């Protein structure tokens, strides 16, 4: 309930207050309606924008000469409004700025739709953004906006990948809950995932080996940007050297706060329930700590 000892009252001119413009301001607003910004020239040669009837420096009437200026200008000072008010020209965060339009000797006060406070500073070049339907009003200029210096190019091309060959063999193992690797007959190294050739010796790998689902973290990264493959942010992606393998496998590490993950930590794959398994790495939720002592790498 409202306090009975307070009352609201509003001071308002319904429909607005009608004001005559006089010849100079009227000319400026008429030019705005036509999409041009003009100033007046003083007897001393200065161009006042927006125009006044008198030179503020001398009090003398300005000359009858109107000079088209801009449309671009340079910001001389600016202030950032993080929370616009209903009466402001923009309903999103914006800058107020003093803008010296090209060809003018004074600055115009207006809003700059800059997106963020770093995008506008003294020296920033700005251009007018015109209102769709103009009526001869200072708000025929919706606002100003910084010069175009970049565009955004969307790129999206869909692909279908098929796991045949060695990857198909590996994923078939994953379906069964087993890591399949390959041993090079020439150098003896065990590679996981399974591959058809040894990248070091260049010879075909014939022997498949099944590796346990335990291993050691050799290095890791804490990721703070969301990824559809990770359950939460931050998440840890790590190199896990499976026991018996010679090269590490990249995998998620979970079940432990991100800042506690360390090199040498012993981990075990956490498989999804057997009924949910497919031939996909999604079978492994992540690698979780086994609780064993860390290993010296």
């Amino acid at each position, binding site marked *: 309930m409202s306090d009975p*000892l307070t009352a609201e*009252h*509003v*001071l308002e001119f319904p429909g607005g*207050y009608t*004001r005559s*413009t006089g010849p100079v*301001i009227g000319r400026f*607003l008429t030019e705005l309606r036509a999409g041009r910004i003009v100033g007046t020239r003083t007897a001393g040669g200065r161009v*006042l*924008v*927006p125009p*006044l009837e008198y030179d*503020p420096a001398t009090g003398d009437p300005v000359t009858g000469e109107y000079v088209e200026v801009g449309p671009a200008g340079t910001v*001389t*000072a*600016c*202030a*950032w*409004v*993080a*929370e616009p*008010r*209903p*009466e*402001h*020209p923009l309903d999103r965060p914006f800058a*107020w*700025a*003093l*803008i*010296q339009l090209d060809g003018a000797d*004074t*600055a*115009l*006060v*207006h*809003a700059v739709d800059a997106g963020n*406070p770093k995008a506008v500073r003294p020296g920033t070049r700005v251009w007018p953004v015109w209102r769709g339907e103009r009526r001869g*009003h*200072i*708000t025929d200029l919706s606002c100003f906006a910084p010069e175009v210096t970049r565009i955004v190019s969307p790129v999206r091309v869909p692909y279908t990948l098929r796991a045949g060959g060695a990857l198909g063999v590996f994923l078939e193992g994953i379906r069964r809950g087993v890591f399949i690797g390959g041993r090079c007959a020439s150098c003896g190294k065990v590679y996981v995932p399974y591959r058809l050739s040894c990248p070091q010796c260049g010879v075909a790998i014939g022997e498949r080996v099944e590796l346990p689902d335990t291993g050691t973290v050799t290095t890791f990264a804490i990721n703070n940007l969301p990824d559809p493959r990770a359950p939460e942010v931050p998440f840890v992606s790590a190199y896990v050297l499976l026991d018996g393998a010679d090269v590490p496998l990249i995998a998620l590490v979970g079940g432990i706060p991100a800042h506690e993950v360390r090199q040498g930590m012993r981990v075990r794959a956490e498989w999804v329930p057997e009924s949910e398994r497919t031939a996909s790495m999604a079978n492994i939720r992540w690698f979780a700590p086994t609780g064993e002592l860390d290993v010296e790498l």
Partner: protein
Amino acid sequence: MREVAIVAFAQTRHTGHDTGLSEPELILPVIEEVKARTGLSRFGFTCSGSCDYLAGAPFSFVSALDAIGAWPPISESHVEMDGAWALYEAWVRLQHGDVDTALVYGFGKSSQGDLRAIMTLQLDPYYLAPLGLDQLSYAALQAAALGAGRDELDAIARRSRADGRRNPYALDLPDDLPGGSPVEPLKESDVAPLTDGAAAVVLAAGDRARELCANPAWIAGIAHRIEPHYLGLRDLARSPSTADAARAAGVGKGPVEVAELHAQFTHEEPILRRALDLPDSTVINPSGGPLAANPVMATGLIRIGEAARRIHDGAARRTVGHATSGPCLQHNLVTVLEA
């Protein structure tokens, strides 16, 4: 020039909220206080400063006369400005020579409306007001144009708050500065607090002043100057109108012990200090200034009153009171007071 002095000054215990007192109720105690201090009940001239837009009612200043006692009819005037300009009008009136005393008062309740939006109404109606350029927005433009360091501005806010806490009439604002930024680069602590309050001053000429006050604060110089209204026509980092008014009032003719500046934003203080050419030895706003209490339309008059108080109580021999009006220090009044 006829010698004129401030012989009495009183102000309310300003509040940061609406106590529910009407304007005549707000000013009555300060009028009674200056009447009691001078023993006067009638004045040769009466002048007030206030702004109807604060109350949102036309001629609201007329009802304030209920606190004065305007019968039989008195010689009275009003300025739709800070009470400092009412003091100026009263000083001019006393120069006529036919009256010897004047009562001046200013009052305002900022609590009743949205001051940021009300201050938009003083802007030119063609180029600025339609943009909705509010009080904090144009002040922020001036702060950006000056580009003062954050440490300097925070130090001004802290000093003002500490002085204000020692001043029983000012608000009790904490030393910890609020962190919010309504319009960057302004911080909340750079902005004078919303305040309700009033103040009154009695002026007297010549020997009448000596009769009414043991230590009259003589107005050695008083002048006001104005600049173009439109912000883009000015160098907002400087205040040439303050410098001109200071020259006309003779600020530089002697040392200034205390200066009370009508700086409603921290960044206005260094601008005014430079314009007045005040040395580091001048104590600025020992009352806490507007950053500790800002009863709009009385704040400027209080600056002159506080500057006079230092002379009344013998603490200083020569002080300066400054008042401002309009957006971004457009119009400035400077008063030099001497023992």
